[in-house]
């Protein structure tokens, strides 16, 4: 446990735990609304914020928060109004965001794409004291929204049209989901990196689905997976001197594959149990009528 002796590792681990909680917590709603790749888009837009942070000598984390929130709101507006050309508009937003980031960082005094790398793929040693403060505040917001409004977000993400008729403020909730996803991207940016953050929003949820039948259980398992892989990945990254973002994402995918392998026999057993519990009139499998089976034996 010697890694805990270093202040930078303490900061990195704290940030990693917060990422492990927040990314699946908002990701589950994105997966539920079948917008699994929204986090990826926001990550691209956040690059402009990082670049602006360098250019204006401001905090890249806060600048990235600002631009990704604006980008997420814009994506939501495009979804409302630009039905037909929506995907083209989104593509321009994503690649414009990425190009802007590269441009601004090269315009910054002494800036080059090398500065960008730690934001793109994550880095342990660069999580600063002020980053940790920002990450804690932002993570608090994400947890508050994803847990506090879970019933409303569930309803809107499950069936937007129905949610409107329950009187929920559907547009406000959609905007809040987008903003929360944007905030999560910047929480995860320092540890996992902008290009890999979306994996941590989606894959733990997909892995949890292999085991769960309810939304509540999927949420809990996804967060548990998220925290396990971010802690595991951060420690591995420290000892093996490999990039943390890539380590965490590969661990998450390994967790998904392990759970999928584990779930297959579990599902079979569950199906058998369900079949055994079924009333006689509703068999789960096609059964040969007893009389015909008897006929068959006679024939042979």
């Amino acid at each position, binding site marked *: 446990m010697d890694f805990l002796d270093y202040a930078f590792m303490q900061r990195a681990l704290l940030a990693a735990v917060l990422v492990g909680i927040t990314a699946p917590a908002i990701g*589950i709603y994105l*997966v*539920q*609304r*079948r917008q*699994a790749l929204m986090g990826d888009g926001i990550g691209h837009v956040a690059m402009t914020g990082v670049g602006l942070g360098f250019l204006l000598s401001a905090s890249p984390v806060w600048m990235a928060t600002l631009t990704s929130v604006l980008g997420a709101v814009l994506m939501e507006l495009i979804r409302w109004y630009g039905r*037909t050309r929506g995907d083209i508009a989104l593509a321009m937003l994503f690649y414009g965001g990425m190009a802007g980031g590269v441009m601004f960082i090269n315009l910054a005094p002494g800036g080059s794409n090398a500065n960008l790398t730690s934001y793109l793929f994550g880095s342990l040693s660069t999580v600063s004291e002020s980053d940790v403060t920002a990450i804690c505040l932002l993570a608090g917001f994400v947890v508050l929204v994803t847990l506090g*409004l*879970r*019933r*409303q977000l*569930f*309803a809107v*993400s*499950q*069936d937007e*049209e*129905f*949610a*409107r*008729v*329950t*009187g*929920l403020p559907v547009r406000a909730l959609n905007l809040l989901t987008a903003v929360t996803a944007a905030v999560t991207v910047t929480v995860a940016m320092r540890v996992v990196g902008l290009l890999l953050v979306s994996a941590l929003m989606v894959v733990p*949820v997909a892995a949890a*689905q292999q085991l*769960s*039948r*309810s*939304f*509540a259980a*999927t949420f809990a398992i996804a967060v548990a997976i998220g925290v396990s892989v971010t802690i595991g990945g951060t420690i591995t990254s420290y000892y093996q001197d490999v990039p943390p973002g890539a380590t965490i994402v590969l661990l998450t995918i390994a967790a998904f594959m392990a759970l999928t392998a584990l779930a297959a026999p579990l599902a079979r057993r569950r199906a058998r149990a*369900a079949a055994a519990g079924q009333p006689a009139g509703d068999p789960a499998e096609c059964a040969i009528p007893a009389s015909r089976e008897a006929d068959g034996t006679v024939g042979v």
Partner: protein
Amino acid sequence: MGVGALDEPGIEPVISLRGVRAELGSRPVLRGIDLTVARGEVVALLGANGSGKSTAIRTIIGQVPVSAGDIELFGTDRRRFRDWARVGYVPQRTTAAGGVPATVTEIVSSGRLSRARFGVLRKADHAAVRRALELVGMADRAKDSVNALSGGQHQRVLIARALASEPQLLIMDEPMAGVDLASQEVLAQTLREQVAQGTTVLLVLHELGPLEPLIDRAVVLRDGCVLHDGPPPQAVGQHALPGHDHVHPHENEPLRTGLLS
């Protein structure tokens, strides 16, 4: 422009559409619809595909914007209407599932949010969710994932979700689409009980089917206009097609579902 007796004073309409126009893109889908549903009435919206019946329903709930005309719910302009707990809505769906597993109870609980303050469900709310599940005969599946259900059971879950707020008005968009015979009978029975309690119902149907004995009035749309408003017609749309020659059951006749078998 009204529909006779229903415009008489003293009967407050639950739904009132006057001269409603709506476009999808630049294509006019509703071209001046009048529709009134009185308290306790069961009205079926019929018509071929593309006649505008789903759009008409979706203007009432505010999902499709209206370019002209007035819509009132319980005597209140729809834009100012806030009392959504009085309305139960069953959208046109083939599945109740989303991108993440959810149990039957979790889905049906969403329908109770209109009565729950700040999204907090209390004991009475959980009891109402359970009652709604019992109404559609799904109480024994409450903890199951909706992914494990059949098409008809999905529809029963969607209807339970609409009933969870104990609404006075049920709006349903093709509730019988893709529903197996057993579920059709359960749904017809559920609806019969609701109607007996005085619930007002407006539903889009492709064919009258097992619900026919319940229906007071049919409104037939064609190309975004009201073609017929009165007693359920003998044969429209799919019914008129050859090979669709079933006998229409009349009052006091047993429930007939054979046309779908």
